[in-house]
C-alpha cells in the first residue's frame, strides 16, 4: 500500500497490460471517445460491485474485458461469435503445442 515498500508491478498480469493497450490504441485510432468508454466501464464496475466488493486487480480487468467485448460487438468491430471461435482456436493451439515451442494459430 505504501510507496516506500517494494515496487509494485504496473500490471499484475500480461493480459491486463494487453487489454489496457488495446483499449488505448482503439481510442486513439478514433474508434470511440474515452468519455464513452469510461461511462460504460463505470457501469460494468458498478454492476459487478453489487454482488461483491471489487479488489481493483483481476476483477477490475475482468470488468474492463467484459466492457470492451460488449462495446466492440455493439459498434460492429468484433462479433461475439468470431471472438469466441478465435478464443477456442487459441486454446486448441496451446493444448497441441509442445511446451517451449511458440504457440501459433493454425491459419495465422
Amino acid at each position, binding site marked *: 500500500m505504501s510507496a516506500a515498500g517494494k515496487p509494485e508491478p504496473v500490471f499484475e498480469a500480461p493480459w491486463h497490460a494487453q*487489454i489496457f493497450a488495446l483499449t488505448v490504441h482503439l481510442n486513439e485510432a478514433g474508434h470511440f471517445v474515452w468519455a464513452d468508454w469510461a461511462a460504460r466501464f463505470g457501469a460494468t464496475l458498478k454492476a459487478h460491485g453489487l454482488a461483491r466488493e471489487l479488489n481493483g486487480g483481476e476483477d477490475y480487468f475482468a470488468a474492463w474485458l467484459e466492457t470492451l467485448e460488449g462495446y466492440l460487438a455493439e459498434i460492429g468491430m468484433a462479433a461475439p461469435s468470431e471472438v469466441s471461435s478465435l478464443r477456442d482456436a487459441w486454446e486448441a493451439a496451446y493444448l497441441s503445442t509442445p511446451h517451449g515451442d511458440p504457440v501459433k494459430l493454425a491459419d495465422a
Partner: protein
Amino acid sequence: MDMAGLLGQSLFMPHDHHSHDDPHALLPSDPALRVKALETLLTKKGLIDPAALDEIIDTYENKIGPRNGARVVARAWSDPKFHAALMEDATAVVADLGFYGRQGEHMMAVENTDTVHNIVVCTLCSCYPWPLLGIPPGWYKSDAYRARVVREPRKVLADFGVTLPEETAVRVWDSTAEMRYLVIPKRPEGTEDLDEEALMALVSRDSMIGTGLAGGS
C-alpha cells in the same frame, strides 16, 4: 515455474494424451485467451497494429511514472513563478515539461496547506493523470477506496497511516474523463536547502494522490 504451476501441471490438468515428459504449452487463463482472440480478430481486420500495443505497454511499464509528477511538485516548491503558473493552468505548464497526452488533456493542481488536505479519487472507474503518475495502483481502482474515501476520508487516510490535525479540512476531488487532479503535498520542514532532484525523492506517488504526505508515510 511457481508451485501452483507445478501442481497444476502434475495433478489437475486433464490432458492425459500428453506424456509428462512432453507437456503442452501452459494454457493461459480464460480472460487472457479472450484478449488474444480480440487482438487476433482486430489485427486480421487491419484495425489495429500489434506493434503499437507493445509500444503502449512499454511506455507505461518503463517510461511514464510518478517521477514525472514528483518533478512538477519539486519545481512548484522551489520556483514561485512556476508555482503560480501551475495553479493557474496546470495542463499548459506540465505540457511545457513534456508531460502531456493520454489522460492528461485537462489537469488541475490542488495544493495542500495547513487548513486543507486534498485527496483524489475516481468514483466512476479509475480516471487518473497518466502523464504525471503512470497507471494507478490496485487500491485506487478498488471498490473499498472508491466508495469509502468520499464517505469517510479521514478513516481512509488513517488506513494509509496519515493523521491530520483536526483543524485541517479534507477535500475530496472526484476525477472524470474530462478532469484529472494532481495533489501538491506540503513541503516538509527543514528542506529549504535541497535542490530539485533531492526534493523529488521526497514526493511519493501516494502524496500526489493525497493518501500520503511528502517525505514520509
